[in-house]
């Protein structure tokens, strides 16, 4: 084998990234599912509220955010479940690199593979909801900052419930209160832009939250994994 010294953070990250990308490639159809779900949610909203252009355009930022949030919530189940089932999570706990680091890399890869296709679908969703064109950049920026934050917060909750068999609704119940600030600042910044104000306030708060979560959430999730697997 290669060197007997402990792997560096970078080499562990590289290995995990390569593994996740390879696994994703083998099931690349699955990457479309969150996007399809979000489109369906938007369709349901449009059907429920009526297709009146003004109404949908005013509701668009909120509805779009909720659709993205809910589809991210559904995708959360796959964050640790596969590894928990085949025993890889136990190996992570025993690994010579910090568990929080592995959690961070895994969460970011999960975001890349579930939320990034979703972000690509946002223009389609925006068209369906008649979101005004000038708001698209703010929307994409807010989602770009918000979705990793949702993934990181979701990772903590997902780690808490990783041992359970039917954790689905409990996972949503635990995650949604924590999602409230992200939703408020994300949809709120787009709403501010819609009213003609500067959306920088909400966006900067999202960015600050993201930075904090990048540091703190993996540690909390690692603690949760240790608790859940004892």
């Amino acid at each position, binding site marked *: 084998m290669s060197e007997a010294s402990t792997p560096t953070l970078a080499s562990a990250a590289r290995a995990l990234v390569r593994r996740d990308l390879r696994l994703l490639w083998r099931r690349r159809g699955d990457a479309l599912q969150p996007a399809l779900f979000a489109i369906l949610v938007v369709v349901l909203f449009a059907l429920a509220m009526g297709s009146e252009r003004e109404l949908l355009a005013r509701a668009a930022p909120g509805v779009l955010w909720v659709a993205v949030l809910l589809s991210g919530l559904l995708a959360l189940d796959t964050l640790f479940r596969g590894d928990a089932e085949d025993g890889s999570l136990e190996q992570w706990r025993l690994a010579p690199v910090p568990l*929080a680091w592995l959690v961070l890399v895994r969460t970011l890869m999960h975001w890349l593979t579930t939320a990034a296709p979703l972000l690509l679908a946002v223009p389609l969703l925006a068209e369906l909801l008649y979101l005004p064109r000038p708001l698209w950049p703010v929307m994409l920026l807010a989602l770009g900052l918000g979705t990793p934050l949702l993934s990181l917060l979701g990772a903590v909750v997902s780690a*808490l*419930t990783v041992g359970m068999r039917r954790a689905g609704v409990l996972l949503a119940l635990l995650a949604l*209160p924590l999602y*409230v600030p992200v939703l408020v600042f994300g949809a709120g910044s787009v709403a501010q832009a819609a009213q003609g104000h500067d959306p920088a306030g909400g966006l900067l708060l999202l960015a600050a*939250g993201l930075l904090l979560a990048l540091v703190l959430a993996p540690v*909390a999730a690692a603690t949760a994994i240790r608790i859940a697997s*004892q």
Partner: protein
Amino acid sequence: METGGSPACGRAAPLPQRADVPMSNMNPVVRWFHQLGSPPYFDRFAARWAPWAFALGLATMAVGMYLGLFVVPADYQQGDSFRILYIHVPSAWMSMAMFALMAFYGAIALVWRIKLCEILAMACAPVGAAFTLITLATGSIWGKPMWGTWWDWDPRLTSQLVLLFLYFGVIGLYAAIEDRRAAARAASLLAIVGVVMLPIIRYSVVWWNSLHQGQTIRVFGESSMDASMLPPLLWMVVGTKFWAIGSVLARARADNLQREAGKDWVRRAAGVER
């Protein structure tokens, strides 16, 4: 498995060993805390003091209610309907205080793995949730004469609603895991995450409300409360605290007995013959 010290510590540093300090040499306060960590001692303590806490709570709340309903003059703007504030405000304060207490016990339980702290943390959750429900209900009842509507997306009521869901989450997670100790520790971690997120949630709801202003105007603010209206509020605050102590002790005692169910001391306490 882990034998103490946080996961991030690496090697196990020697923890302060209470066992090598004879009980007679301990500071009495420290000894009292130490003794409370023993399930049988805690059971006797809770059995003895919970009724007193309830009684004191009832008495102080009765005084507070009497003063609030009959003695304090009516508000010049709101008339008599403001009096529900004497239930609403102490409940709101208790709902937040119980969450902080739950996170505090939870943190001790996670770090030092003291069984009684796990039990106390989990006992705080339903009590806090009840206070949150009371806050929401009284807030809604207050809103009808004030704003003409049963519900208003007022930042305070909205953040109380999110707080209620955080409580439900902790209770639900505790109930969902089989092993009681692992369940308590997972729910404690959730409580800690919740207590960190709580100010953020509160701030975000206030920001959101200011964003979508123009719906209702705040008519009553605590800061402008007249001095003559204050005494019942203080009585009620003290009363709810005592009531909460009684509730937490009673619930913790029940949980403790349930967990230790097979042990001899429980059988003796329950009067069961061997």
